[in-house]
């Protein structure tokens, strides 16, 4: 039993190392938006999500209304609902209400991917072990990035600002290359976002919501079915 926790811990090491670099970039962005390193760290420790936190920081910097913040977080993080739904089918009897409520906190894209790829069902010891390193890596990277953000020369900071977008490209482009509907989703949502940005004064949060919901609904109508999207 005890070694299931250790197995989870070991499986989380690679995720944690990956998070270290991405959250480093987030830490720099958060400090650039006017936060103290501790405030940046607190966001990472309580949210544990890259895209949601990045959008959150830019909304805070723009002094957006709280409703816009709530709706934006809901839309950006809607993918976790799908992952939680899917993972919900894979949990064994050791995952009661309380255990599910604890694990939900750390159900990120990568943790979900590793947990779902395990053979058979997964239990609480494995999942608790799996959560540890990614959460530590995400938090540690944030505080390091935030500290570095106030120390590194501006020339380096401006070059690091693109890191998180590079990560987004690495997430969306390989599936877009394989699947026509995903390719359309990326091109249409990107194009619509550019058009709304330059033609209207709509807030960044609402722009993401409008593009995400409209394009996803259109493609779900045109290309429904399991195999349409990876």
């Amino acid at each position, binding site marked *: 039993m005890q070694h299931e926790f250790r197995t989870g811990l070991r499986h989380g090491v690679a995720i944690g190392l*990956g998070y270290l670099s991405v959250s480093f970039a987030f830490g720099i962005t958060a400090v650039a938006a006017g*936060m103290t390193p501790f*405030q940046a760290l607190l966001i990472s420790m309580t*949210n544990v999500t890259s895209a*949601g936190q990045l*959008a*959150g920081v830019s*909304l*805070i910097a723009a002094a957006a209304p*709280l409703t816009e913040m*709530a709706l934006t*977080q809901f839309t*950006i*993080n*809607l*993918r*976790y*609902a799908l992952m*939680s739904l899917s993972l*919900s*089918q894979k949990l064994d009897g050791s995952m009661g209400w309380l255990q*599910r409520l604890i*694990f*939900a*906190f750390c*159900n990120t894209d990568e943790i979900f991917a590793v947990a779902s790829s395990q053979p058979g069902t997964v239990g609480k010891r494995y999942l608790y072990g799996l959560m540890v390193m990614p959460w530590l890596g995400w938090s540690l990277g944030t505080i390091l990035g935030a500290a570095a953000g106030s120390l590194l020369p*501006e*020339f380096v900071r*401006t*070059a*690091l600002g*693109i*890191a998180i*977008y590079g*990560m*987004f*490209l*690495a997430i969306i*482009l390989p599936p*877009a290359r394989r699947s026509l*509907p995903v390719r359309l*989703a*990326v091109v249409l*949502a*990107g*194009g619509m*976002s*550019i058009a709304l940005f*330059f033609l209207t004064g709509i807030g*960044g949060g609402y722009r*993401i919501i409008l*593009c*995400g919901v409209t*394009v*996803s609904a259109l*493609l*779900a109508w045109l*290309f429904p079915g*399991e195999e*349409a999207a990876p």
Partner: protein
Amino acid sequence: MSWQVYLPYVLVMAVVTYLVRAVPLTLVRKPIRSTFFRSFLRYVPYAVLAAMTFPDVLFSTGYTLSGSSLPAWSAGLTLPWAPLLCAAVGLLAGTLFAWRGKSLLTVAVVSCAAVAAAQGCCLLFFR
């Protein structure tokens, strides 16, 4: 940033993000029937991340449309939109590597290196 401004935002972020993860994991234990809704949820991440990336990636290096508060390193260059050009170079490099299926870390590092190289070239050639 003052805590009065910061705390309500972070509370909303954390609670909404947590509920989106926790509610389906605890309350919904049956598969979703609607094909439309299942497909919709599958497209959301790609549409959302694309909308977050474009056009925002072009402003990730400090360029602003108004041309005010540009990065200090670009001050005095004959090319006022140098930061925009550098971001475009980084985007191009990131797109090429991501399209070839390179890992998250590789694409992120290559994008940053491309921006840094472009910034260096701007300093060399547009003084």
